[in-house]
């Protein structure tokens, strides 16, 4: 894929729908072996919310692997990027310290692959109802008649 096409792809994904909902179906088996493990480690490190159910990260990783699996370009980019991560000494990803994980991700953060994963992960995590619960976002209120009588102006800490 040419760089420009790639940017274009990220745009249509940017802010938007394809991220969260679209494709849990595509190749749920995902990426096998070490790469799969590595990818799920990366997904968590991007937005590590300690109190967020690990299921959410697993779902996001699964959708992500599905998409990568369907594209030869993305698969090739992933292999390159994950080689850099894996080549970071003899430790396997789960055994790295937090600092080592961050440092190795910083090495690939300028790559198109990293940006693709970041974009997808962001959409997947922050569109997820479990994350909304964690952050205190109540989402659609149409079914409850809006926020007009449901906390629109319930603030109680403002000084006089």
């Amino acid at each position, binding site marked *: 894929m040419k760089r420009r096409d790639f940017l274009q792809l990220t745009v249509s994904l940017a802010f938007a*729908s394809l991220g969260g909902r679209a494709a849990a179906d595509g190749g749920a088996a995902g990426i096998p072996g070490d790469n799969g493990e590595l990818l799920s480690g990366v997904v968590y490190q991007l937005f590590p919310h300690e109190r967020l159910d690990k299921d959410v990260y697993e779902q996001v990783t699964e959708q992500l692997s599905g998409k990568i699996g369907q594209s030869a370009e993305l698969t090739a980019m992933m292999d390159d990027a994950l080689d850099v991560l894996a080549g970071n000494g003899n430790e396997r990803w789960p055994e790295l310290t937090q600092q080592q994980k961050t440092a190795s991700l910083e090495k690939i953060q300028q790559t198109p692959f990293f940006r693709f994963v970041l974009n997808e992960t962001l959409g997947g995590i922050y569109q997820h109802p479990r994350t909304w619960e964690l952050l205190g976002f109540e989402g659609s209120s149409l079914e409850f008649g809006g*926020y007009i009588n449901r*906390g629109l102006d319930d603030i109680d800490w403002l000084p006089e």
Partner: protein
Amino acid sequence: MTQFSLNDGSVVVVIGSGAGGGTVADVLSNNGVGVVCLEAGGRLDPADIVTNEAEMFGKLTWLDERQGSGIAPPPFPVWNCKTVGGTTVHWTATSVRLSEHEFHARSYYGDMAGTTLADWPLKLADLEPWYSVAEDRLGVTGTHGIERLPASNNFLVFEAGAKRCGYKEINTGNLAINPAPRDGRGSCLQLGFCTSGCAVGAKWSTLHTDIPSAEQSGHFELRTEAMAVKLNHDNNGRVTGVDYLDSDGKLHTQATRAVCVAGNTVETTRLLLNSRSGQFPDGLANRSGQVGRNYMRHVMAGVVGVMPGQVNLYRGAHQAGIIYDERHHDEARGFSGGFLFETVNFTPESMARFLRPGGWGKEYAKLLEQYERMAAMLIVGEDPPMAGNSISLHPTRKDRYGLPVPVIHYEHHNNSKKMLRYGLDRGRRIYEALGAEQVVEMVDVFPATHNMGTARMGNDPATSVCNQWGQTHDLDNLFISDGSLFPTSGCANPTLTIIALALRQAEYLTELIQSNSL
């Protein structure tokens, strides 16, 4: 449903069904003038509008390729819609008039180096009656005896902090959103998803009002998924027809008496540039060389405060809060022109995307966990026109219609940088006055939402594209009906002014047609 034949040269062709196009089409058709409206997007049913930001983004947005350069975000420089109703399906409905000085920027601000500042060829008094009609049509709160919307938590924080900083003119704004049912539209339930399209129709959009009203006139035909690609002209300085592609990619030509182009600046400009000909080698109506130049998009930045208690900023209409105190012109602040503070909402996803674009990692996740306690506002300020800020055609890249991709180039003028610094500091103080634990500035992260200037009005054909009616100097029956007309941007969100100009233009055009002078 009314239908016109392709060779019916008596019709006015209106390109775009958003704020400008929807308004012009409604007035013309109800004046008895036949109108064919070409709209590149499809038409959503009320049931298609759901309170889900990500899903609606996919349904509404113009996603064909565009390129940004300078500080315009490269892959997505401009945010607007491709759907019946245009970006009024998605907008946040702030409807504020320009101030007197903003019609005379050149006279007030003087000769600002590096800019192409100009006075408007009309003054506030000329537009006032049309503003009033526009406010009535849209049902703008705080005008025509319409109440303002109730305060939300985000507004209450904004207001309390602003008062501590000495600001006085603060209210829930002038919004084209019904606090109570009016004009066949329901009342706002404070759903907080205004940019997904209003599921209850409380927010004004040409989709709910002007287009149905035009359809009832019996003089209006809407063609959806109809992308205008070229304007044809004869040797007598008249547009004769509009080439457009239908949903199957088939090319048609609609004959016409006059054309009103309202494609939302980027597309309006692209259409003129793509309609170049032997007589107009630099683009149609571009003898002045000004088409595509002087592009403005407002000084725009965000301020997010992490407050000591819960705010839940997502509850309620997006932009129901304005501080007006900084909108005047006062060189003592170190810059010319003024700006507004406006409240704004973010969902968790849009917060994660814009708070620190490209951000990731533990600290960022921790910051986002403060979502409930975040309050947010925008700064919307006047940006001076500059010749180099422009919309042009990419030399080689084509979009899915086979048209050259538009390239949007935008840089800040020094005046804008000073205004930004001042505005961000004042915004920060508003939240700090209430004990904010952290304040984050969002600078140069948003795609443009307000687009202006690339077919400017003026009295001199050598330095402007259109006259005060939006009629091009070069072709009598070619009109521009969107923000491209603005010689300068002022600091008010542009749509109310686009609509006031469109109303004025539509009556002028009706007169020309009915008196057979066109």
